[in-house]
């Protein structure tokens, strides 16, 4: 292909978008709207996922030791626990530390309630805070820790707490949320394609005559196809460009609002850098592919003259 022909195709493809004014607008609109819905849902799914991850990671085991075990025994138990492979970290929380944490978490009103307890009269047991690599293995790990009592005649473990039952339920919920999210994203992608192909079908009738005339003056199939291809790509690019701009802007505004005005520190949204570009990239690529795909099938139908 000559360079001037390439330039011509690019020029014609661009001009076609303008020439077909309303039809282009409709196609751009349908791509933009469907991708917008998809994008919003992707952001939502991302955040649910992140929230689920946070919850997963917050799950930890707390092991309370028998009172007055004495240093050497605590060291021994600590070594035994550390031998369990599933554990990511084991932190010793002395009873003094425990009391301090309790004071901090209870705040002003706690001060009064905990009045009178000092290091001498501290009623709390020593403990270990334990994290696991895989949140799903938590109950297994907890059982192994509990089993130390079976071999050790001193029975140093007073209690192992990890929110049994609650944790398992949480996993079921987060898994379900992830799967449903993926399913809905796929469903929306299919819907977007359907919407776009319907828009394109209406343009086909107009294009049919155009293509037959082009063939009449001796245009080859590829010569006819290229400008349509570029037109489709442009429409997809414009539609998805608008969508990603709106999504990025809207999302960053949302983050600012939740963090500064409402002060929702507990629910931390994924930052724009974390997900925004990923979503925008997906939207752009998907939009371009959809545009090209749509115009290609609409032309192919009428090339066999």
């Amino acid at each position, binding site marked *: *292909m*000559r360079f*001037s*022909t390439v330039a*011509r195709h690019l020029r014609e493809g661009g001009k076609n978008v303008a*020439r*077909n004014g309303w039809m282009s607008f409709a196609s751009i609109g349908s791509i933009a709207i469907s991708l917008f819905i998809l994008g919003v849902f992707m952001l939502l799914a991302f955040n649910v996922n992140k929230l689920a991850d946070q919850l997963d990671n917050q799950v930890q085991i707390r092991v309370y030791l028998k009172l007055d075990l004495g240093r050497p025994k605590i060291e021994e138990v600590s070594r035994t626990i550390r031998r369990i492979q599933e554990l990511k970290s084991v932190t010793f929380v002395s009873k003094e530390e425990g009391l301090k944490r309790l004071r901090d978490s209870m705040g002003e009103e706690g001060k009064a309630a905990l009045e009178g307890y000092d290091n001498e009269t501290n009623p709390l047991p020593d403990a270990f805070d334990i994290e696991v690599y895989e949140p799903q293995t938590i109950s297994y790990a907890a059982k192994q820790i509990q089993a130390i009592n079976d071999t050790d005649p001193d029975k140093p473990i007073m209690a192992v707490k990890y929110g049994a039952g609650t944790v398992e339920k949480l996993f079921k919920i987060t898994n379900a949320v992830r799967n449903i999210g993926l399913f809905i994203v796929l469903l929306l992608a299919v819907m977007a394609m359907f919407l776009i192909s319907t828009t394109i079908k209406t343009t086909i009738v107009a294009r049919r*005559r*155009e293509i037959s*005339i*082009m*063939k*009449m*003056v*001796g*245009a*080859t*199939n590829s*010569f006819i196809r290229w400008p349509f291809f570029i037109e489709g790509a442009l429409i997809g690019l414009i539609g998805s460009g608008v969508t990603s701009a709106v999504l990025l802007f809207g999302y960053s505004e949302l983050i600012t609002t939740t963090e500064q005005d409402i002060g929702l520190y507990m629910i931390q949204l994924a930052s724009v850098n974390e997900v925004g570009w990923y979503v925008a990239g997906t939207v752009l690529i998907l939009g371009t592919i959809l545009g090209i795909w749509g115009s290609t099938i609409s032309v192919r139908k009428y090339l066999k*003259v």
Partner: protein
Amino acid sequence: MHDIWKTYPDGTVALQGINVVIDRNEFVYVVGPSGAGKSTFMKLIYREEVPSKGQISVNGFNIGKLKQRKIPYVRRNIGVIFQDYRLLPKLTAYENVAFAMEVIEAPRRTIKRRTMEVLELVGLKHKANSLPAQLSGGEQQRVAIARAIVNSPAVIVADEPTGNLDPETSWGIMKLLEEINFRGTTIVMATHNKEIVNTMRKRVIAIEKGSIVRDQQRGEYGYEI
């Protein structure tokens, strides 16, 4: 054309055993009642239809056996003009004509020069930037003619080019076609216009019920002899 038969998929027999030779630089009228096979005859020449049986060669190409891929290249040597003009509605007169040259990948400068040249020939240089909708029927047909001749084809196939035009405009178009023929292009024109055929005497091929019933030099209009 040698022993051409054409049967459409629905069973309609359009042409039965057509034998005709049209020489270079001839001007031929094809006449006959509606549905006689005139249009099929024309379509076979520019390879819109393929004969069911028989051989057609145009410019030395056996176009009945042409590969799909080669069709565009043969069409570039045949200019086609229709009753309904068939211009690209969203392109200006200039762009419509230039399109036929872009298709053959002519250099831009050549396209510009040649397009203006033919627009001047058909007397529409001043309307180069008008859209088809802004032109009268006669003007649109002139643009179509300009498009047909821009690549200097050997043959022009015109299917009732004056069918939608008033008598005066029709004469203008005929003058133009005669001029093009005079410059060395073969013209095959299907028509219902008795006045034109009888005034501008050329070879007349009359087709009726799928057969040639008359083939006469400097003939008159009419298909029942």
